[in-house]
């Protein structure tokens, strides 16, 4: 089977780099309530790592590593968990931030007013929603990229 990836230089650099890109994307998602970034941006960064893998190794070299059904399932899991997190505070209002300033273990800490160094365990539902939306965006964009490349490539060679 002919591999339709790029040259060995690109493939070697990709092997070094794609883990770091994914790590950076998870960092952006994780610190979405403290620093610039959030679920959308971090998810797009992780999806760009998947796209890099796809470009470097080709649609045939990636077979079996990224399952399309798995990606679609994870996207639905992200969307549904976002909706469930929004429904958590339905006792007061839809999208009510139940855990903020509650003092509980789930991001319940309070932050001082004004410029500070950032409290990681604060924010209530916001970091959890960041993770849900990040999961949704990264798997959704990865599914779009994979199916647009693989799907259009396959029909031509048939």
């Amino acid at each position, binding site marked *: 089977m002919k591999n339709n990836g790029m040259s060995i230089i690109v493939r070697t650099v990709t092997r070094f780099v794609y883990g770091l890109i994914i790590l950076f994307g998870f960092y952006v998602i994780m610190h979405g309530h403290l620093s610039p970034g959030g679920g959308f941006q971090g998810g797009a960064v992780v999806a760009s790592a998947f796209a890099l893998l796809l470009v470097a190794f080709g649609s045939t070299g990636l077979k079996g590593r990224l399952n399309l059904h798995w990606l679609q399932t994870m996207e639905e899991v992200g969307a549904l968990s*976002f909706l469930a997190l929004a429904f958590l505070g339905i006792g007061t209002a839809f999208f009510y931030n139940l855990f903020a300033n509650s003092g509980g273990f789930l991001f319940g800490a309070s932050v001082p007013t004004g410029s500070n160094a950032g409290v990681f365990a604060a*924010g*209530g539902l*916001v970091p959890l929603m960041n993770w849900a939306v990040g999961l949704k965006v990264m798997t959704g964009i990865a*599914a779009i990229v994979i*199916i647009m490349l693989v799907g259009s490539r396959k029909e031509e060679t048939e």
Partner: protein
Amino acid sequence: MRKVALFVAFLFVGAFLLLGVADMRPFGEPQIADMDDYYIANTQREVAVNNVVTAVVFDYRGFDTLGEATVLFAAVVGILALFRKPREDER
């Protein structure tokens, strides 16, 4: 002839856009900002988040984010349905 008419229409729209932009209020001085000032002043107390944009996206205006997530989901499902390989009995 059609191209000339289109070009006239294009010039018309462009002139309107540029004239409207030239009459815009000055850059860097938003005049109605009460809501945003409320967000900036109260985000740390109400949502306990340092990033005001994230607080607006996920807390104050969560419905917009929900609709956006729905649009992304619909697009992904639509693309997957388009590129789906037809089964044998459908061909």
